[in-house]
């Protein structure tokens, strides 16, 4: 590493200040990157800034969209972060979300004319179980057969998508829907109450914030949360202390799957109102970024989810207003996470300019 004019030393004491440097650098880098990319697409820098970061907050409707998209990101990211703290890499939130959406759709499709007010809670429960069960496949394979959970959860994403395609083109397809691959529209009792009139924002954000608080208590105050963190930081220490690894794998994957499953229910019971081919614009992957960007800390994730939702809505606005392709969104997500990880070096280590020690000595 001697080609670089700096040295990296282990930091033994963290300051309050150092923890917020990486996300700040990441956000700034992303903003700069977005200006560069949009300028290359013939959008002036000021317009680019406006579309992506100002417009989403400029109107009531747009802001409500930010809230709407923030809820699933926040919910999933909280679930994932708990697992990531334990170094259990659940990359399958996308698939777990799809399965949750499928599970949550069963009741309103089967009882399409129901007026039972318990419909929505029941949907959440079924969706949570579906998401959890999908993640449980990876947990069983890891615990019993030592199969790498990254690869298994990823493969399960692809399979979940095919399950969805199969169901909406067959068993769950709307019989009066002109053969479109989608389910019947949900009854009113299956829909989440709207938060702001004439917008799409619904009460799922409250649920996500509640989960945030629970996650914070779990990781900061509870003994099981502590055990998970030990397992992630030092697996040998966890084994020495008698904290079972299997338990950590189960908790991590099931919590992540449950949160993703509920997020899936909220999509179909919220903005979609039915089961469709596309139930998620990549929330499962974006939530991974949110979890890291938030420093795997429950409160940090709250801020990170907001910023990610902002980019989502800003990207949509740029797409409709200036024909900016959707890929730009993906790039910005990538830039956000890459720059965050790279700048973590400033908070986890002390980066010092390399001093020419020998030269100084010779002068003496």
């Amino acid at each position, binding site marked *: *590493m001697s080609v*670089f004019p700096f*040295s*990296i*030393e*282990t930091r033994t004491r963290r300051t309050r200040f150092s923890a917020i440097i990486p996300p700040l650098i990441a956000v700034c880098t992303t903003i700069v990157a977005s200006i560069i*990319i949009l300028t290359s697409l013939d959008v002036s820098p000021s317009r680019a800034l406006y579309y992506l970061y100002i417009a989403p907050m400029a109107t009531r409707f747009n802001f409500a969209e930010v809230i709407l998209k923030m809820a699933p990101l926040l919910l999933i990211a909280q679930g994932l972060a708990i697992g990531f703290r334990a170094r259990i*890499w659940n*990359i399958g939130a996308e698939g777990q979300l799809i399965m949750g959406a499928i599970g949550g759709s069963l009741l309103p499709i089967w009882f399409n004319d129901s007026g039972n007010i318990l419909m929505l809670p029941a949907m959440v429960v079924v969706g949570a179980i579906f998401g959890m069960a999908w993640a449980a496949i990876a947990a069983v*394979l890891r615990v019993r*057969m*030592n*199969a*790498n959970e*990254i*690869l*298994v959860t*990823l*493969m*399960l994403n*692809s*399979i979940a998508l*095919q*399950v969805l*395609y*199969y169901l909406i*083109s*067959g068993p769950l397809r709307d019989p009066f829907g002109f053969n479109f691959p989608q389910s019947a529209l949900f009854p009113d009792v299956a829909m989440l109450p709207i938060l702001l009139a004439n917008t799409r924002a619904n009460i799922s954000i409250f649920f996500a914030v509640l989960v945030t608080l629970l996650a914070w208590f779990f990781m900061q105050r509870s003994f099981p949360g502590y055990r998970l963190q030990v397992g992630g930081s030092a697996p040998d220490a966890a084994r020495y202390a008698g904290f079972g690894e299997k338990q950590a794998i189960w908790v991590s994957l099931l919590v992540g799957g449950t949160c993703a499953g509920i997020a899936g229910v909220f999509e179909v019971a919220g903005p979609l109102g039915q089961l469709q081919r596309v139930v998620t614009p990549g929330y499962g*992957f974006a939530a*991974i*970024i949110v979890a*890291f960007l938030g420093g795997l800390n429950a409160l940090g994730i709250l801020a990170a989810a907001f910023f990610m939702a902002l980019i989502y809505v800003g990207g949509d606005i740029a797409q409709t207003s200036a024909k900016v*392709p*959707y*890929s*730009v*969104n*993906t*790039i*910005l*997500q*990538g*830039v956000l*996470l*890459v720059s*965050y*990880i*790279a*700048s*973590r*070096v400033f908070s*986890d*280590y002390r980066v010092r300019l390399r001093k020419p020690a020998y030269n100084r000595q010779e002068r003496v």
Partner: protein
Amino acid sequence: MDTLTFLLSGTLLAATPLLIAALGELVTEKSGVLNLSIEGMMALGAVTGFIVATASGSYWLALLAGGVAAAALAAVFGFVVLVTLGNQVASGIAVGILGIGLSGLIGRPYESSTIAPMHELPIPFLSNVPVIGPGLFDHVALVYCAPLLAVATWWLLRSTKVGLVIRAVGEAPEAAHAIGYNVVLVRFCAVLYGGFCAGIAGAFISIASATLWSDGIIAGRGWIVVALVVFGTWRSGRVAIGAYLFGMTTLAGLLVQSTGIAIPSQVLTSVPYIVTIIAIAMLSMDPQRIRLNAPVSLGQIYHEAK
């Protein structure tokens, strides 16, 4: 075309990019770095190759360009994990997303356009053998190169000084540093090489097998590549066997359909993923096997005190 001919030919076409990328990833992982951004690198290679082939008409140049573009992305990955000491799992996902986004943006003007397939290089005499000839010996040169690359990788890692250094760095980076090797440099080169291979594999897909560009064309193959290395327990020969077996499963669906049995297409599409999960689970059951072959420091951050 004869069913068997179709099966052989299709298997080779499907397996070739997987094998090339997996052999690159194998070298990267042997040096101790887990690169999960293969999907993004293959996508970038695919789009770059497609554009260069369209513009220049030279398919070999296109393959090279695909490799170089992906290697450039690999350099970003290498910087993040080796210099700024980022977590390898998170960094791989991040750079992968970046690659997919970049390929989508760069390839937008070419979305869904097609290209004449790369020229085949029939092997004299052999290609005239009925059934097997057109199945195995009437392909683009890269199809024949892939198994040779497997042999070369095996030889490189087993019998050469370079391979020895890569394995040493992957097993005990502190010890390698202590006897004077530049661990970061060796790993960086291995990451670049893995990226280069992934780029060529991606370009192969866009200009030789699919012969078109569309966003999302890699369709999860990058992850299959990572799975293949685990499946092959870090050995070139087994990785190659895995790649060809996997290539076959992707065709199984088409074969079943051709027999007229009514199986939903979604089930058939899922088969390769299900097979992958089962294969990984079965192979991971014996911890000894993994520990004997897996690079000891795989995925760990290496930080040397100065």
